[in-house]
């Protein structure tokens, strides 16, 4: 079995599993009237999911290039920052502090400029502060959105 075929089998299986759960719940949960429309959807959903999985297993599913390991390696640091920011930083550090740290971390990590150059670090700090100032002006001052404050602001 080629790794490309395996790449299609994994999401195909995940979608089949999701469709199975949706179908199961749609036909077992009560009151039945509330699940009438989900039942119709789930029948089509599970049928298509089976078809998709069969195509993946038999190697007929060729659309989509999957996620190569190199791409995954590039993604991991950014994804960790995103998840930490959204699920922890935004609430516990505060939206603005969390955003500042996330912006700076993502920008610094993916910036192709040298990590040893102090001039480049100054530029990163300046861009981060300027961007967050605009965000603060837009959301806190103009739109007056009250965001979680966390430990600082």
């Amino acid at each position: 079995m080629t790794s490309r075929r395996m790449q299609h089998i994994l999401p195909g299986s995940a979608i089949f599993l999701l469709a199975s759960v949706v179908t199961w719940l749609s036909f077992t949960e009560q009151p039945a009237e509330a699940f009438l429309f989900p039942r119709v959807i789930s029948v089509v959903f599970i049928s298509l999911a089976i078809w998709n999985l069969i195509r993946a297993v038999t190697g007929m599913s060729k659309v989509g290039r999957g996620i190569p390991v190199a791409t995954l390696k590039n993604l991991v640091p950014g994804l960790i920052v995103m998840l930490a920011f959204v699920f922890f930083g935004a609430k516990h550090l505060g939206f603005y502090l969390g955003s500042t740290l996330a912006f700076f971390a993502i920008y610094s990590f993916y910036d192709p400029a040298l990590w040893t150059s102090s001039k480049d670090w100054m530029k990163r700090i300046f861009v981060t502060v300027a961007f967050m100032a605009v965000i603060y002006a837009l959301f806190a001052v103009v739109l007056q959105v009250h965001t979680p404050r966390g430990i600082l602001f």
Partner: protein
Amino acid sequence: MEFLGYFGGVFEPWAFMLLLGGTVGGLILGATPGLSPTMAVALLIPFTFHMSATHGLVLLGAAYTSTVAGGAVSAILLKIPGAPANIATALDGNEMAKRGEGAKALHLSFLSSGVGGVIGILLLIFLTPVLAQWVLKIQTPHVFWIAILGVTVIGSLDSKSFVKGLLSGCIGLWLSTIGYDEIQGTERFIFADALSGGIGIIPALIGLFAIPQVLDMMAKGRVDSLIEALEVPKQKLSASIRELTKYVRALSIGTVVGSIIGLIPGVGGQIAGLVAYDQSRKMSPQREKFGTGHPEGLVAAESANNAMVGPSLVPLLTLSIPGSPTAAVLLGGLLIKEIFPGSDIFEKHPEVVWTFINSMLVGQILMVFFGIMIASWAAKIARAPAPIMAAGVLVLAVFGSYSVGQSVGDVHIMLALGVGMFILEKFGFSAAPLVLGLILGPIAGDNFTQGMTLAAAQDGPWVYFFTGTLNIILISLVVASIAYSFWNNMLAPGKKPAAGPATEDAK
């Protein structure tokens, strides 16, 4: 001519400022590779939440119009289409820029976008009220089938694989059922507290359109993304206008093709440019020059892209079925303002709807003016560094999805849907049908439930949903859209699918 009475609203100071800001901002966002029109409009929706319905729609309409046109800048100067709609523009536009005709290409692009766009908006003005009258005849089962048609058309035509397209639509329809069912007073599919209120349209739109693009930028790693843009030498506008008059045929083909494609629910601008380019090449005596920097191809593609914008709103305003993914986002913008498209939209909200449509007409002219103005420094715009964009879009997405409902749960939903969509896209699934399913799901669901109740009191569900001329026509269209895509994807392997960019690597 009712629309003439509402032009004053466009020129109110605040509305006009939003129109100007939306146009200039949209041109800049559109010119930036990696920021699609759909994502730009989705990120703007939270800002409109605090505005009046009229002002919010003026801003969104201006952004929609100008991001599509702005996408031509990076297509011409970098050969990176700012949006899928600009793929055909890159074919000849970039060759022209390489020859030192970058300014001419940009001028022709904005001028033809303007011509196509104005004609498209005029179609919207004159067709929508007519269709709205016809919509009066539509009843519960028809609305159900129209919603299903919207999902199947976009699912089968806008996706790389029609099985995956329809699956995306199904996932969207299922997501729309999550939450509290108000009719029966019961919970459905609530696996986490954040889902108890259902999936909000705005966090979903932002997550599905913005986060995959952020992750795409990150996936490239620490590479120098500053691709050298081609220089734009100065060119007299009058010379470009004279040049445009030589390509009336391409301009007409582009406008007609764009208008027709815009009217087809769910198909959208992705294919308008490519179909117009292809038709123009077939009808041109100089067809061998296409692809070598021939302005005719550029004119056809750009006029089609913007001609599509107005007509794509016709099914949106009358049937709640968006003509393009960006129009689907606009539908979200209408719904959060509690404006429900339908036959009575012009009676209930004439000021909002006509001011919105008129602002798009004025916006087309502003777009040409500002587009030509920025042409000289467009190269700089098109080179925004990817790491700043990735970080910036993420922060905007978080604040945008939070600000509407002031709920951290919405931010979690936004990110979960975004990461999920990124993975799905890598395996050939598409965001557009999923979004359509999510938006049209409640319409289909409510009308299905109502229809079943009425059917039980009459002749039963079969007669109610499957008989009658309009039901049969709509069901036939649903079947035809699936069958057409099935034929293209499965039975005609040697044949290139018709869905343009989205299907370019279809099997």
